[in-house]
């Protein structure tokens, strides 16, 4: 399914559209070049929840960094809320991260010397907004941690930390929440709790893209994208893609 010739007006209605996206590390030296993302196209509609799966090193994180405007692609097009990201300058990219993207990391990435509510407040401060404290507290309430607002990260469990990080990702009401193995550092029970939270947020209308190893996490999304060597090898409803993924890996092991 090619989106390359879709007119931009249609893209404007879609949070994320990428076309023939490539990220090649060391592109200038052929013997060192790594084609981490190698010509990927897809679109993500508002309210969708998508899991990206694939073997380690296949380019999932790289793709997510490009989607999160943390990294620039080597080539290809990326429309975020209809705007061509390649045309944004540094400040506009920072503003895009601030307003349209909520990033959730495997290792939480909370600032250790700030308490929970201050961590959640941070994007609002960079947005130059008022009333930041009240909005941060409301976001903490949404993830069920209002009572931990003044705890520092080292006073919180792993699951609680990730919920604070999710509150931080949500607080600016972004177009899309990106998670790079958000349950990867959690035990299975707290991982499930975090997934339940993300499921609830999705039900409330949040658009979510997750990179995951965990097939049960992938199964609970609407759609699964399978990657291999920087390319998409499958993109469709979760159940079908996971079946394909399992068979593929089983074949490899055998």
């Amino acid at each position: 399914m090619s989106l390359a010739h879709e007119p931009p007006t249609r893209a404007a209605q879609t949070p994320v559209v990428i076309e023939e996206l490539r990220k090649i590390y060391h592109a200038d030296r052929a013997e060192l070049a790594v084609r981490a993302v190698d010509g990927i196209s897809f679109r993500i509609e508002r309210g969708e929840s998508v899991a990206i799966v694939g073997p380690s090193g296949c380019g999932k994180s790289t793709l997510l960094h490009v989607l999160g405007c943390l990294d620039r692609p080597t080539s290809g097009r990326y429309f975020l809320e209809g705007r061509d990201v390649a045309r944004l300058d540094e400040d506009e990219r920072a503003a895009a991260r601030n307003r349209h993207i909520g990033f959730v990391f495997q290792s939480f990435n909370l600032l250790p010397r700030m308490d929970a509510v201050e961590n959640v407040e941070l994007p609002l401060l960079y947005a130059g907004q008022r009333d930041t404290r009240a909005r941060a507290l409301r976001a903490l309430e949404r993830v069920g941690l209002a009572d931990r607002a003044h705890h520092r990260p080292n006073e919180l469990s792993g699951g609680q930390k990730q919920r604070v990080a999710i509150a931080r990702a949500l607080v600016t009401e972004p177009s899309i929440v990106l998670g790079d193995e958000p349950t990867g550092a959690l035990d299975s029970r707290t991982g499930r709790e975090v997934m339940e939270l993300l499921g609830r947020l999705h039900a409330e209308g949040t658009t979510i893209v997750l990179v995951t190893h965990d097939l049960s996490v992938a199964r609970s999304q609407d759609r699964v994208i399978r990657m291999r060597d920087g390319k998409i090898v499958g993109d469709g409803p979760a159940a079908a893609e996971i079946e394909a993924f399992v068979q593929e890996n089983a074949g490899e092991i055998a």
Partner: protein
Amino acid sequence: MLIHETARTAWRSLAQNRLRTALTALGMIIGVTAVIAVLAIGEGAKASVEGRIRALGSNLLTVRPERAQGAVRSARVETLVRADADAIAELDGVEGVSPESTGTAQVKYREANLSSSIQGVTADFLPLRSLDVASGIGFSPDDDLGRARVAILGANVAYELFGDRSAIGERIQIAGNGFTVVGVLGAKGDVGFMSPDDMVLVPLGTHEGVLFGQSYLGAITVKVRSEGESEDVRERIGELLRLRHRLRADAPDDFEIRSQTEMLATMGAITGTFTALLGSVAAVSLLVGGIGIMNIMLVSVRERTREIGVRMAVGARRRDILLQFLVEAVVVSIFGGLVGIFLGWLAAFAIARFGGWETIIPTYAYGLALGVSIAIGIVFGVGPARRASTLDPVEALRQE
């Protein structure tokens, strides 16, 4: 991000790393302390010079021989004689004259031995210079005429030779000749050269006839009746001496007349130069302080790379990061400046209390110290801050 949020963030980061903050500020603290102390000493020295000018009044003139033009540098200056002094004494408006001869000689008392400035003076010297003996007596005109072997010691000389014992009536040796100490001057506590504390006074006749065998004067001090007449008297002395020395109309003066005020003004200028010199040395330590800030800020940027990545990921612009680290550097340097001002004030107080030097912190020094601190924070903070702000977000997040 709003500037007060940036300042708050910077302040918190500093408050949470108290030891590192203190170490970062240490160089600044030392530098500012040194600058404040030096300025206080300089200002104090200036004030004490000015105090001496006031105490002396401006009605003293000093006549010195001037090397004749064309003479080689090392030529002895032999133009002023006692007869010149006697003639000046007869001029209108002159209240008194003190012809003086200078020399340096070894002064001995038993085992104690020092090289001292030996001044040949008449009985008029002490009253003219507003000096007085603390113990013993001054010279009489007979001492001068009879080339008496008597001496009056400056306070420091007396202390070095005799310690706390009385020197009066003791016999000392000046350049191998036996002298009797008849008086000791009260201590003036002056810093600087030509302080009477460091002199040995002998009768002028003795100085010429016994010790140095020369009849030329080093100086004639003239006391003018009133300050207003000072310029007139100076002119009269000039005319008189040109006449007495038979100088042709086109020949330059072979003497120089300066008021005491001018001489002290020169001393004041020298003090100022010293202050400036020491001040620049202190300023170098400020530079070192600035480099210290830069150093620790660079370490801090490295340590907090991941934090920088997180801030960028949630929407910090490069300029937000730049400002955050810059503000941190400036806050540290202002903190260092304030502590330095306080310690400099303490140092100035201690120097005055225990060192016996007058110290005054000029008010501009506070503003200067603070301004320089801020400037150093900016100058040395901007490099590390730029480094922080140009980090690649993905690389930064990968750290650790």
